[in-house]
């Protein structure tokens, strides 16, 4: 039984998984075909051995450099800064962004012990001053939370002297939603960030 106990204990350490779920998963695996377990173990081993953060942007990859950084068709003059690597996927899925990324690995939250030193900010600063990359624009795509905003403000103060364009993702009404169900703060933001129609930029 101790092998099952070990497995249960490991599973329980995963986010969102409690004792009962861990037990159910463990017994599900034991009951099922052995190949399934080997395949899962293989996949886990692959991740452990081959996946690592891209040395340039911090996105996860198995190659030396990630597929975005490697892709010669990407626009190297723009860097989009996100908090977590999974947010790269969210932006990539839009199909509307052709620039590069930079993953901070979190956001400022001194209450949780996360200061600038815990984020990959030095890497970002190196990139903007790197004569080879020399981006013209940095998009601050941190979340629209108090912490995400503070992180954006902090980055802005550091990036300002580099003389590039610094932008922030717009905030406003979610697509397909009714105005009457949108909260007041968001509507206020959308009003403040309103734009001219019919000038061809929309």
């Amino acid at each position: 039984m101790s092998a099952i106990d070990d497995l249960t204990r490991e599973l329980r350490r995963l986010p969102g998984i409690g004792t009962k779920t861990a037990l159910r998963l463990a017994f599900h695996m034991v009951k099922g075909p052995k190949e399934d377990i080997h395949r899962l173990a293989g996949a886990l081993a692959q991740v452990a051995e081959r996946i690592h953060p891209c040395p340039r942007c911090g996105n996860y990859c198995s190659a030396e450099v990630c597929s975005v950084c490697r892709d010669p068709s990407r626009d190297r003059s723009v860097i989009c800064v996100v908090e977590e690597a999974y947010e790269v996927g969210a932006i990539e899925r839009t199909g509307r962004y052709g620039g590069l990324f930079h993953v901070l690995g979190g956001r400022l939250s001194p209450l949780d012990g996360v200061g600038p030193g815990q984020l990959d900010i030095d890497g970002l600063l190196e990139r903007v001053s790197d004569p080879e990359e020399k981006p013209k624009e940095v998009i601050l795509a941190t979340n629209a939370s108090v912490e995400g905003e503070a992180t954006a403000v902090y980055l802005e103060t550091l990036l300002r002297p580099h003389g590039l364009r610094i932008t922030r993702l717009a905030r406003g009404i979610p697509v397909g939603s009714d105005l009457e169900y949108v909260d007041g703060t968001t509507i206020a933001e959308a009003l403040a960030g309103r734009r001219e129609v019919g000038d061809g930029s929309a």
Partner: protein
Amino acid sequence: MRELELRHFRNLGVQELHFPPEGVAVIGDNAQGKTNLLEAIYYLESFRSFRGAADGELTAFSEDVFYLKGSVEGDRPATVSAGFDRKRRKKKVSVDGTDAQRMSSALGRLGAVVFSPSDVELVSGGPSARRRFLDILLSLNREGYVEALVGYRKALAQRNAALKANAGAAAVGAWDQGLVGHGARVTHMRHEWATTWSGAFSAYCTAISGCDSVAMKYRPDLGAGGGEPRAGEEAFGDDEGLVQERFRARLAENWETDVRRGVTTVGPHRDELLLTITSRARSLQVRTFGSGGQRRTAALALRLAEAATIRRERGTEPILLLDDAFAELDEGRSRQVMELLRDEGTGQVVLTAPKESDARLRGPSLERWRIHQGVIEA
């Protein structure tokens, strides 16, 4: 309030109550659960105990979960329910059968005000008691206030943590935008409320006591110490943009103090709702210089202003929850208060009293309920 379903809230067990439209007087000895009943009703308004108890304390001893459901009629009928699971520390709130995604969207559906003997602490307590009064009042009645307050508190806590960690000017300053943006909103909305209701507040005080007038004024602290408002400080709460500007300037001025103390020393978390009496051309704080009677009067006037706010903001008559209120007032004053409430137009009244004679004075025509060991008999 038309119906109230109670399940394991404090000592009230499992009961279903049907309220008469004009209200009810609940009579019972002390420690039988009179205040618990009012606490349950007000919980459906604010989703917290008006006595400041944690949710876990509200669950009956032998149970893990309490559940409340109440329906109100009138211009804005609604059915609000709230449940709390002590073991899982989970709170669930729903309005008209739909779970509220955010607690803030379900706040203030009843339109109720509690008058309690402990209200005197609003006046005699420190500035935080009066800020808390404003925070609850505005959260329930003004759109956007909760969001601003929550944002401000978050930014403040983070900035303080950054200061404690000696994070340096840029990493501390990163929180200033959120701090100033949300903070100015909080200050502005509190200031606006105090300005709107200061006249009514003074009039209530005069009407209750028959004489001495008490003034109410919001004083955005933003660094100014001492008891009395300084000249030129009145104006800047009016304009949110101006408050932001001032807030930013004060943060800059106090930078070194903040670093030394490891804490943010300016902002709405230090503001004060000043209640003052004038004596020989000097304005003195009721908190320190007022008599017991003046403090109780001022506290009642704050609650009356709260009721009037509900009337104006929501267009409904407030439900008055009178918890053995006015027990410490003499007969003349408590009659004055009841008259004031009637003049202003009162909705339902739920009052509690230990004796029939107290109930007679405050709600002569109300139906009587008895309460004994948590069990209510209509």
